[in-house]
């Protein structure tokens, strides 16, 4: 579909430096958001290992818990939680930009769309939390 514009002699074609993402706070925030995926991916691998160990019996499970209680893993989980929250917040904020909700002739204000997304998130989190608390 798209064809590159052929280079013209005499023009100077600038190259984006590898440090481009340090040039504006918005770029840094973008890179932080992208990097959250690495931590969330590692968290999910740990979760899969947890499920496997749980299936292997109480000893395997206890051994895994011992490993995860080490300071390194606790620090990792705190950082992963922070990144997961950052990712979720920026994701829900984006809904206001992406999703235009029309009610007949009227357009719902973006703040209401974002507010609705956050409310849904909080309610879902509360329900999951209540489920685990109720089960003890």
């Amino acid at each position, binding site marked *: *579909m*798209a064809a*590159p*514009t052929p*280079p*013209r*002699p*005499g*023009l*100077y*074609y*600038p190259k*984006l430096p590898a440090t*481009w*993402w340090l*040039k*504006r706070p*918005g*770029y840094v925030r*973008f890179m932080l958001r*992208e990097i959250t995926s690495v931590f969330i991916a590692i968290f999910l691998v740990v979760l899969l290992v947890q499920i496997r160990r749980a299936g292997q019996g109480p000893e395997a499970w206890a051994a895994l818990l011992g490993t995860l209680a080490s300071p390194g893993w606790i620090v990792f989980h705190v950082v992963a939680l922070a990144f997961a929250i950052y990712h979720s917040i920026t994701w829900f904020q*984006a809904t206001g*930009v*992406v*999703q*235009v909700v029309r009610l007949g*002739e*009227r*357009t719902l204000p973006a703040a209401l769309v974002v507010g609705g997304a956050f409310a849904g998130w909080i309610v879902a989190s509360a329900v999951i939390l209540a489920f685990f608390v109720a089960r003890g």
Partner: protein
Amino acid sequence: MSRETITLEVTRYAAGQDREPRLESFTVPYQEDWVVLDALNYIKDQVDGSLSFRWSCRMGVCGSCGMMVNGVPRLTCAAFLRDHRPGPIRVEPLANFPVIRDLVISMDDFMDKLRRVKPWIIRDAERPVAEGEYRQSPAQLDAFKQFSMCINCVLCYAACPVYGIEPLFLGPAATALAHRYNMDSRDEGYRFRAPVIADSVGVWECTFIGECSVVCPKGVDPAAAIQRSKLASATDWARSVLMPWGGRGGDR
């Protein structure tokens, strides 16, 4: 009384003379009500007539005087010296574009992309004049109005690292203008623009950094236009898979 001055570090580049752009410092009188463009015009008028840059209206309408001011894409007619006191102020050509000379960039690539999205009203059949005008409600106008404020100054492209890395990317302003016509109740050209928009170097190249909307001097939100076009393009795809017999592309 010695008058206050301010220094501008201005990019100079001349094909055949320079292998790459270099900075040249100019000290100009400081005036409270001067913008960077005034200082550049002072330099061209009083110091070095060979300095090249584009400008026209001096009031944020024509979109010709976009440059990097201290690393940020700005219309230089709206960038006051007083906001950058005591200086120096670095003035460079808009990032991500080929430089023709000094502060002048080549817009060819953008003009090409703009043409490809057909930024005009397309009708299957024109209505006879006798039938009257195409009427629009305020809500129908609101659906596209902000995107119609684009002045093609390409500051958004200078703020977009994706465009810097992948010059084939359709980019913010062209998508915003495509979206402007797709959202226009008088328009019937969605199906002609959709293939350009849905292309792998169309909206899907965008990673939603969002700085295009931050730097826009006219309050347009190209990032929103791109994300909404992604939604439309994904919906089209889903529809074509689920209902292969149905028509593609609705009125968005």
